[in-house]
């Protein structure tokens, strides 16, 4: 019944792509048609995704592959393909659903923007590329869509292009992710060279199938790490995380869709997709490449959570939170918990989109203010936003029971605890859990509790077109946990292909208490620390953060993002710029100097020859003529015109002849 969807998987990304193209060709004034088209495209994509999702339920380990020839070069053919398996299907549904919510939200949020139609064109374009990314059955096709989502991200971050900071952030995002992509590109080339194909699955000949993997040998580690570079760039992992917080310059729906729910998760998805490459020759589930993934993930998770504590911008806090959560997912993948990582990815997609849209609603209500210190007391003014935001916050902090994020986080912790190599990541992640709860509590207190401050004076609840998506996402966040709990880990089973039983007793596990205790600790510390936030304290002015008051050094370190951006500015960027200047200088003065030197030598030779000509040969001729002319002038003096002189000369000549004759004779 669903077979036609499996052969027409390309339709899923094609629908939003087509919508995007049509919208681009519309005039600026056709706002209604643009929205209609974008939403129709997204609904179509969602419907097709659900249709494609259905057959994957029927059999465990379902996999539908559809390969085709892209082009033939020489005598060889490059093949691409589409793939549908539980991983792809789950991602499809999540992306399309979250995407649709955000499309609807944007209608309200962007209502006043003059480039409204272009915004929807870009969003649709992104949506198409992202959907294509998850169903690619070829590393090359994945890379193509990977770059296209990067392009969409670039365009959307810089959407308010007249703002120089937005344009700078867009450039930063584009270049930083491209650094990672170059590693990805090299990894892809290497893989292509070793295995002879870039298709993941090709009835036994794909590069992720056992025959293909066997051809890799020792290079598998390097290939995996190079591909991981791409994931590091896209998913904002340390040390390439710097672009993601800056990307918050884009409109908030963009931050929600691209920089929270979907695109940044593409790195995690990529690692999950090519997981067989990472786990080649695994001993006890540990390979060098996976170890790198774990440590990068741990570093990122902890670092970003720390930085988030000291940020003032509501979106920046969420951005660092995203970075931190992505680190968490990476750890999960690295320690072998692929399913747990993907589950967290999906859950995170919902609740982080919810949080960002909530933040968008707050910003909209506060007329564009993003500084949490200027908000406060919004609980009463924006009740729907508050309720939904609180659900998101609880899910992000990892409160279990009915919030999806809690269950998935617990599963990750579980997987990490069992990592044979070291226990350190586990304990560091536990610290990360406390920090997450802490910074979210801080944000909640600043934004929604306490007294109203400057920005919240004229605040109002957002229109229904914006609150409805919030409610939908909040419901998703809650009900999604049904398939996540340890009592009925349906999603786990769906992703891994293992059979699943319902067993209520498993609901209560030691990890649950550990998690609960840590989250409570975070919340309690947060409430205690920030109970007076934004209010005049005994000897602390209202605008100074309590942490800043207590530990100014630590706060400054964190507020300045650990000076990583500054470090890059003064090392990598300064160095590259110097290299550029040097290249230019070398070109202008050294290489061109050599050329000019050669030219100069030629010219010198010319001058030399010319001077020999002038002074030697030519001068000789000149002198001769000058001499002849002088002689002539001398002789012409004798031509006095006096006949008698001539005759006298004749007479003297004759006399001389006579004398000569006489003398000879």
């Amino acid at each position, binding site marked *: 019944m669903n077979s036609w969807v499996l052969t027409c998987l390309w339709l899923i990304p094609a629908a939003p792509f087509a919508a995007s193209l049509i919208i681009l060709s519309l005039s600026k004034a056709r706002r209604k048609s643009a929205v209609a088209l974008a939403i129709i495209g997204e609904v179509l994509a969602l419907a097709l995704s659900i249709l494609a999702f259905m057959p994957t339920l029927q059999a465990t380990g379902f996999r539908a592959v559809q390969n085709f020839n*892209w*082009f*033939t*070069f*020489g*005598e*060889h053919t490059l093949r691409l393909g589409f793939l549908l398996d539980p991983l792809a299907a789950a991602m499809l549904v999540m992306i399309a659903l979250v995407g649709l919510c955000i499309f609807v939200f944007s209608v309200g949020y962007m209502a006043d923007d003059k480039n409204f139609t*272009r915004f929807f064109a870009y969003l649709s374009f992104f949506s198409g590329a992202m959907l294509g990314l998850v169903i690619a059955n070829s590393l*090359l096709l994945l*890379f*193509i*869509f990977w*770059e*296209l989502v990067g*392009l969409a991200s670039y365009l959307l971050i*810089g959407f308010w*292009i*007249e*703002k*120089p900071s*937005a*344009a*700078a952030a*867009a*450039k930063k995002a*584009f*270049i930083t992710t*491209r*650094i990672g992509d*170059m590693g990805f*590109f*090299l990894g892809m*080339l*290497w893989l*292509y*060279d070793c295995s*002879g194909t870039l298709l993941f699955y090709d009835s036994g000949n794909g590069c992720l199938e056992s025959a293909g993997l066997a051809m890799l040998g020792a290079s598998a580690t390097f290939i995996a790490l190079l591909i991981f570079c791409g994931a590091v760039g896209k998913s904002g992992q340390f040390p390439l995380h710097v672009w993601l917080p800056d990307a918050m310059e884009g409109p908030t729906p963009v931050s929600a869709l691209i920089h929270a729910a979907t695109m940044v998760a593409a790195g995690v998805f990529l690692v999950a997709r090519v997981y067989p490459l990472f786990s080649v020759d695994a001993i006890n589930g540990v390979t060098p490449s996976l170890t790198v993934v774990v440590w990068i993930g741990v570093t990122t998770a902890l670092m970003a959570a720390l930085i988030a504590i000291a940020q003032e911008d509501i979106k920046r806090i969420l951005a660092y939170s995203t970075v931190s959560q992505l680190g968490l997912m990476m750890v999960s993948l690295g320690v072998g918990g692929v399913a747990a990582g993907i589950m967290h990815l999906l859950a995170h997609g919902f609740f982080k989109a919810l949080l960002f849209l909530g933040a968008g609603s707050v910003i909209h209500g506060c007329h564009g203010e993003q500084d949490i210190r200027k908000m406060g007391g919004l609980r009463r003014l924006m009740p729907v936003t508050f309720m939904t935001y609180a659900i998101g916050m609880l899910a992000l902090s990892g409160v279990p029971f009915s919030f999806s994020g809690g269950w998935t986080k617990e599963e990750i912790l579980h997987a990490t605890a069992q990592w044979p190599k070291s226990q350190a990541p586990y304990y560091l992640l536990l610290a990360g859990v406390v920090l997450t709860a802490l910074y979210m509590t801080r944000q909640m207190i600043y934004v929604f509790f306490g007294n109203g401050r400057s920005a919240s004076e004229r605040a109002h609840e957002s229109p229904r077109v914006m609150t409805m998506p919030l409610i939908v996402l909040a419901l998703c966040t809650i009900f999604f946990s049904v398939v996540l709990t340890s009592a009925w880990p349906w999603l786990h089973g769906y992703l891994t292909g293992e059979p699943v039983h319902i067993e209520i007793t498993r609901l209560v596990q030691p990890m649950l208490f550990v998690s609960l205790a840590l989250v409570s600790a975070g919340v309690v510390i947060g409430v205690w620390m920030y109970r007076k936030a934004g209010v005049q304290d005994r000897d602390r002015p209202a605008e100074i953060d309590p942490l800043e008051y207590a530990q100014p050094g630590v706060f400054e370190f964190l507020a300045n993002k650990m000076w990583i951006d500054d470090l890059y500015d003064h090392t990598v960027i300064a160095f*590259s*710029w110097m*290299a*550029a*200047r*040097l*290249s*230019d200088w*070398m*070109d202008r003065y050294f*290489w*061109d100097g*050599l*050329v000019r030197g050669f*030219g100069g030598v030629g010219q010198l030779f010319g001058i030399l020859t010319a001077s020999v000509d002038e002074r030697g040969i030519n001068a000789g001729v000149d002198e001769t003529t000058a001499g002849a002319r002088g002689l002539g002038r001398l002789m012409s003096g004798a031509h006095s015109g006096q006949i008698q002189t001539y005759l006298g000369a004749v007479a003297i000549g004759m006399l001389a002849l006579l004398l000569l004759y006489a003398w000879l004779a």
Partner: protein
Amino acid sequence: MVGLITAIIFVPLVGALAVCAWPQGGGRPIALMFNVISAVCALALWRNFDATAAGLQFVERHPWIPAVGAEYLVGIDGLSLLLVLLTSLIIPFALLAQPVAGSSRAFYATMLVMQSALYGTFTAQNFVLWFLFYEMSLIPAFLLIKIWGGENRDRAATKFFLYTFLGSVAMLLSFLGIYFAKGTFDFAALAGLGKNGLLTGKLAWLAFAGIFVGLAVKVPLFPFHTWLPDAYQSAPTGVSMVLTGVLSKMGVYGFVRLLLPLFPNQIKILGPWLLAVAICSIVFPPLAAWAQRDLKRMIAYLSINHLGYCMLALFAIAASPVVAAGIDTHAALSGVFMQIFNHGVTAATLFYFVGLLEQRRGVRGIDDFGGLMQRTPLLCGWMSVAMFSSLGLPGLNGFIGEFLIFKGSFALAAAFTAIAVIGLLVTAIVFARAMQSLFSGPLPESCSAFPDLVRREKLVIVPMTLLMFAIGIAPQFLFNIFNTTVTQMARLFA
């Protein structure tokens, strides 16, 4: 269909005469008319070209100067056809670029002479004839820069002419050496002899060096490239388009057609050094481009980088110590051919855009613009497409060639290819910077009266951009032209 190649070579020459002889008008309509004729010829060539047959097609052979082995020998294979098509594509658009000051009839006539020389260069199969056309393209180019160029045109034109001419002289001497040893100027015959060494000892190295320098200047290869930024910068827009779109391909064409088949042993010995030179061409010019203020100069530097990829692939094929496995050589060669075509299309379009900006603003420094997206969204949008194509974004033409080049080169010379990736990155930086300073930020007073694209401009931009998309998404139609040639050449080089 015999005679078609001769026709395509001489149609522009007749056109040049017609432009001169026509009593009034600017000459552009007539030049375009003759371009339509030559385009029809080129399409006829394409249509009647047997893509599955190996070897030369449409061969015309007449004795010319038998005493020195010079023949009128023209013919095309896939590579030649590709370049003929590229020439037919770029020149009309270059003619449509912003009009030059001064005597425009002479300008169009000179352009047509250059076009004829280009067709000749890409179809001649005998060295003497080839060299004749090769040099014949040089003189119009020199005049076009010298007479109708911008700032510093005298210097730039002289440098361009002397530099390339010196290279040509070196090449001519080398070929004379080869002729005295082997007694033929026929490319196919020489290629057949190349395997066993055309010359021996020092003479072989001298001949190699001569031809190498001649072609390296033309491509140009680092460090013989310093004439290029000056020339491209000074030339009027249309000429820059032709210089980068077609003329710069003559060097790469020469490498494929001459140096690689004739001197396989020398290249193998020098392999790592040549690859290092190619890497320098890939890495340093884009860095220099980053530091440029002049947009034309910036694109000129990126041109060096893009052709550097071609040289990387060619040297990787020729220098690879192992006998090249089929797929890698095929990928690299196909990539080179694709890249030649794509770079022609993309770089010419970029120059056209810079011309448009210059026409509107009067200057073309990167800091002279800003906030254009608010004023001219269409221009910015289409120009971004060309820029993304140039930096190798998938879905556009640039990616196909670069992917294949990297695929092939990585297998043949992995370490060098890994370094070459820096070039891709820096190119992205350069364009990101350009887009930031041109399109974003507040709209300055000086740019607030810019008109957006007019219909005449769309006439150039839309077809070019659609072509970029077509090649980027479904490139098979181009591959069909040269797949057989690739296979054949791969066999020759292996």
